């Protein structure tokens, strides 16, 4: 078995340890004897989405995000088709904002890809903190760090990645964090997202493998004690609660 991961524009979108997400997926596949290829795309490269099983779109500064959004707009239809055909897409911070209808900043509005039913508006102050969210799919919470000036809101059809139990989340008001749509997750969590959340990483890897090789794929179990310890350290420190009592 083999999984191909496409990292979109890491030259521009490379804030907040996004490479850690790639590294985490790569290692967790390799440790299970599954081949992995990571392709880093630059702005001038052509992307054939049918070659890809997982796509990562990371975060960048506002200036870099505008460069990327112009490019993404030109390949919008291909990316949309990939998503509708159940391709796995992980979009973090700036990448997450670009998935929506628009991102209204103080310097104008960046048009989004309209892949998921969300929109983002810049408001005074940045939401910067450790963050803990809970999704009922998993026993273990999802932990990370957020740092964003944009506040993201849902249209009618969007589902959050989790409910905020510590931190701000999408907008600091609704208690939602991130978005799930088909096999797409968008989130403000970095730190990076996946290493301290192996359950979420494996969830996505399984989606990608199932899409490629059909139902019935089981991921071999790994020793995640260090990952779980790192995750529960955050929970204990900020919530002052045991992980099992959530």
């Amino acid at each position, binding site marked *: 078995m083999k999984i191909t991961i496409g990292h979109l524009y890491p*030259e*521009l979108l*490379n*804030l*907040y*340890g*996004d*490479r*850690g997400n790639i*590294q*985490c997926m790569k*290692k967790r596949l390799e440790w299970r004897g599954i081949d992995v290829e990571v392709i880093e795309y630059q702005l001038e490269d052509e992307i054939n989405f049918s070659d890809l099983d997982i796509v990562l779109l990371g975060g960048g*500064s*506002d*200036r870099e995000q505008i*460069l990327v959004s112009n490019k993404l707009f030109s390949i919008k239809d291909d990316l949309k088709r990939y998503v509708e055909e159940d391709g796995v897409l992980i979009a973090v911070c700036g990448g997450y904002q670009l998935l929506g209808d628009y991102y209204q900043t103080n310097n104008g509005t960046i048009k989004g890809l309209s892949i998921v039913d969300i929109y983002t508006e810049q408001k005074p102050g*940045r939401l*910067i*903190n*450790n963050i803990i969210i809970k999704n009922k799919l998993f026993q273990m919470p999802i932990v990370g*760090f957020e*740092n964003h*000036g944009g506040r993201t809101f849902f249209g009618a059809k969007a589902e959050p990645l989790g409910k905020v139990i510590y931190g701000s989340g999408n907008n600091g008001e609704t208690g939602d964090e991130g978005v799930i749509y088909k096999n797409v997750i968008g989130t403000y969590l*970095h*730190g*990076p997202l996946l*290493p*301290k959340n192996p359950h979420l990483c494996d969830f996505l890897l399984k989606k990608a493998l199932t899409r490629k090789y059909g139902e019935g794929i089981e991921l071999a179990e790994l020793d995640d004690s*260090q*990952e779980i*310890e*790192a995750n529960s*350290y955050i929970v204990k420190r900020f919530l002052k609660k045991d992980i099992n009592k959530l």
Partner: protein
Amino acid sequence: MKLRRIAAIWTSKIIGLTCKIAGKQGVTLAGKAAIKIYPDILKELAGDVREKIFVVCGTNGKTTTNNLLCSAIESEGKKVICNRTGSNMLNGVISSFVLSAKLNGKLDADYACIEIDEASAIRIFPHFAPDYMVLTNLFRDQLDRYGEIDITMNFLKKAIKMVPDMKIIVNGDDSLSAYLIMESGNEYITYGISEQYFEEAEDSNEIREGRFCKKCGEKLKYHFYHFGQLGDYECVNCGFKRPDLDFGATNIKAGGQLVFDMDNRNIKANYRGFYNIYNILASYSAAITAGFKLQNFDQILNDYNPQNGRMENFSIGGTNIILNLAKNPIGFNQNISAVMEDEEDKDLIILINDNAQDGIDISWLWDVEFERFYEGSIRSITVSGTRCQDMRLRLKYVDIPSILEQDIEKAIRKCIKNGVGNLYVLVNYTALYNTHNILKKLEREYK
């Protein structure tokens, strides 16, 4: 002499002294008290400096550059004020002046060498206008505090605008710093490493902030890289390129010691770490620009013994220990290079804290090239600090096992007892002072 000024000086001296006795670094507290009592304190004390004021700014290398510069000027027989400990925000800067003042409120100094935090420059320059600024480099650092590097550059730009007569000594190899200064309209002098040293001119994975031209947005073409975005760059679109270097290092050998030529001199320094060439170049070009002759520069370099956790050496119970600060990806990668230059077997302790001064966001750990430790004859790695769990995971994902020991003193003791006698301790900011003190304590204990 105003009474309030004297009161301010006395109060902060007492605070400074109390904190010193209590073993805490009370420098910023002393400054805070002083300016509260007497808002003009910094303005007036800086005005007492008889000749010139230097400020040293930039992400990495500030403390070493500033301390070397101070030593160089002192060796010319001048009295210099210096914030040696690296307390570089407004209150820390105030303290360095106040604590140097005499009890009668007067300051007796020919020069001041002050390192300042990039984002604090706009708060400091209203108090005094420096004659010279050294800008070492701009790298990604503490994203949670500054947001991103563009924001830091804007802060600096605004600060420099306040002092159009300040002459700037800038690292020409850094496209970001050079762009900022060339656009500022201030007079400037450049330094850099003229020639290619590392074989691979090709892009590694190291995050390069300045890979796109700040002037026009085009991708920069590099003739060669040193590290980070430092190197010989050129924009084929708009013509922006590395400026001609006024002070360039050539014929470089880096290993156990640094050997290179600059300004028709041959420099030999017993420092590890290629990046220290920049620190030497920066301090040298600043002092020469200000008119010093530096006849004894070799001697200054030899006498310079860092006491502040920048490649600071300890010998404890037969173990040679090097303590160094590693607080952002580029700094850490340079630390890794310095560790790798030592071919002997070694143990390693990495301490990562996430206190406010460290940056509470530790995602930068994933931008550091830890996989390079694979080839480094490293016998053990111990991880410590509030974020030791994250550090352990970071290493796990490059297949490097590590030992977790949250208590740094225990970690050091274990390495002295069971290690190979050659220990590197790499820590980030808030752990530096404490770790330094623990090592000093152990030094006495083992004597």
